Structure formats: structure tokens, C-alpha cells
């Protein structure tokens, strides 16, 4: 509406009534003009072919304006929510990563500085060649997700990893 008031006070780009009316046409077709301005537009286009033609064009464009697909809002909200929960990772999410790191560390230190099996050697090679990378949320890409596991489940997992490691107690 500020543009409309500016149009009244300062005139249009061309400084005449046609210019003012043309500036108001988008608000007119959207039903946003105040009564006085609306009357001015309607009175003017009756006798001005050029402004009436422009009104027809603006009206065509307004009536055919793009509508967002029905499901778009839900899709966006899902993405935003997903992103928010990833950013605000709960403390046990970090703990899970630490548990994984500790478990891996146990596997490494149990055999000195090398892995105790062929698979372990291959994993060590991958590390050396930099084939692991960190994703946007700070997790190792390709690593299993520990989200949603309880503390008890994480401890059980840790025990299993310790038992299964070459230098484990099992």
C-alpha cells in the first residue's frame, strides 16, 4: 500500500494519471485498493484504451499466477524438521560416536598399532588413503548410525565389540 500512497503523493513515473493508474493495477486486480483509488482506476479505464488493455493483461497474469503444489508445504516442513533434529543431535548421539571410536581404538591398541586380521588391515589401509569422510553433521559417512539406541544398548554393543576384537576377552 505504501506504493499506492506514494503514487498519489508523488505521481507516477510519467507524472500523469495513466502512470498512477498503471502502478495501481496489480493491487486493483487483487482487490487490495482502497475505495477511492479503486473508483479512480475504474473511472479512468472506461475512457482510456491503453490503460484498459494493460488492466486486461495484468488481470490475465494475476488469474493465472502459479500455485504451489498441494504437498509442497508438508514436504518442506519434513525437510526442515529433519534438518533441525540433525543439528540438535542429543548428547547420546555424540556418545555413540565416542563409543564407536573407543571400540575401534580397542581393536587397534589390542594388537599394537596394526589391526589383527586381514579385514582389519584393509580397514587400516582405507583410513590411510583417506577413503572415509565426515558428513555435514559430523558423522563418519558409511558408519552405522547409533541414533535411537538406549544407553544400555550402547553398552551391550560396546561389550560385543570388545569381545569380538582380536584382543578381546572372548
Amino acid at each position, binding site marked *: 500500500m*505504501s*506504493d499506492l500512497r506514494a503514487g498519489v503523493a508523488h505521481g507516477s*513515473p510519467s507524472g500523469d494519471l495513466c502512470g498512477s493508474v*498503471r502502478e495501481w493495477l*496489480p*493491487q486493483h*486486480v*487483487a*482487490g*487490495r485498493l482502497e475505495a477511492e483509488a479503486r473508483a479512480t482506476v475504474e473511472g479512468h479505464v472506461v475512457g482510456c484504451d491503453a490503460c484498459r*488493455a*494493460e488492466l486486461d*493483461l*495484468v488481470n*490475465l*497474469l*494475476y*488469474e*493465472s*499466477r*502459479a*500455485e*504451489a*503444489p498441494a504437498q*509442497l*508445504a508438508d*514436504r*518442506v*516442513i519434513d*525437510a*526442515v*524438521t529433519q*534438518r*533441525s533434529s540433525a*543439528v*540438535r543431535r542429543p548428547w547420546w548421539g555424540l556418545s555413540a560416536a565416542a563409543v564407536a571410536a573407543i571400540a575401534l581404538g580397542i581393536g587397534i591398541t589390542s594388537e599394537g598399532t596394526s589391526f589383527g586380521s586381514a579385514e582389519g588391515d584393509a580397514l587400516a589401509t582405507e583410513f590411510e588413503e583417506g577413503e572415509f569422510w565426515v558428513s555435514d553433521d559430523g558423522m563418519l559417512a558409511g558408519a552405522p548410525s547409533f541414533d535411537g539406541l538406549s544407553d544400555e544398548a550402547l553398552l551391550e554393543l560396546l561389550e560385543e565389540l570388545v569381545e569380538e576384537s582380536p584382543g578381546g576377552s572372548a
Partner: protein
Amino acid sequence: MKDDRRLDDDVPDGPWVERARSGDPAAQGALVRRHHGAAYAVALSVTRDQDTAQDVVQDAFVKAFGALDGFRGDASFKTWLLSITVNEARGALRKRTRRREVGLEGAPPVAAGGPDPAEAAVMAEEAARARSMLERLPEKQRMSVSLRIDQGLSFREIGEVIGSSEGAARVNYFHGIRRLRELME
């Protein structure tokens, strides 16, 4: 739905923005529902591809909420979001290798203008033609026309969105309309 969107515009975003800033999902959802239509129109205006425009809107909202701490409120949330959308859309346009133009079949349906089906059909055809002609305008003219007519933004707001002055937005709009009239004749 169009009328609802206009009514929504009269309610200020401020309280929702403050709640969204602290991560309130309900506030974020309210802002998405309020502005996704405008963001989609802007994205479509830049990319001219419906699928790409939807991706752009999603990315723009995720980015906006992620950067909400940096939003100072100098502009309205809507124009700030739309300027992010424009940047995302331009980025998507650069990345896109396969372009699918929005042709006549992609034009949105036109509301029936009267009881006469023949007249409505003519109106629909003319509207589709006008939209098709709009696609031919340079980006800033196209966006100025779209933001002014479709979204009812002021020239100052349009300038904030497309990265130009208020005066340049006004000139782009009137040049765009004049060119459209020439193309439609």
C-alpha cells in the same frame, strides 16, 4: 486458497520468527505454510521448471531457518526468505544440465471467469499465452512483474528480493509490462 494467503499476509511474522529462532517446529511450520507459495512462485520465475522450483523452495527454507540467528529484521522475513530463494534458484539454474521449459501444458489452471465455457476457454488460452510470453522477458523484468502482480510486493520489497534499488525494480516492472503488451499484440 488465494484469498487465505492474502489474509495471512496481514498478520505480522515477527512472533513466529522469534519462536522459530529458538527452534519451535510449530512456528517454523507456520512460516512455511504462510510463505511457501510466494517462494515457489519466485523459484518458478527464475528456474522455469516446476520440479526444480520445489527443490529450491525446500532448500531455501532449510537454509533460512539454519541462518535465522543472522536475520536482523532489517527487511521483512518474507523478502529475506525470497532473496534466499532467488539465490538458491539461480544456483540451481546454473547446476541444471537438462532444461525442461514450462510450456503451455505446464501453465497453472485458470479460474473460470464466467458461465460461458467458450469464453472461459478463450481466457485460459490467453492467460497461458501471457504466461508463456512472460517467460521470454529478461530475469529481472520477469521477476519484477511476477513479484508485483502475483505476490503484491512493493517496489522497495521487489528491489530487496532481486538485489536492486526500488527505482530499478519499478523500471524493470514497467519495461516488462510494456514488452509483454508488445508481445501479446
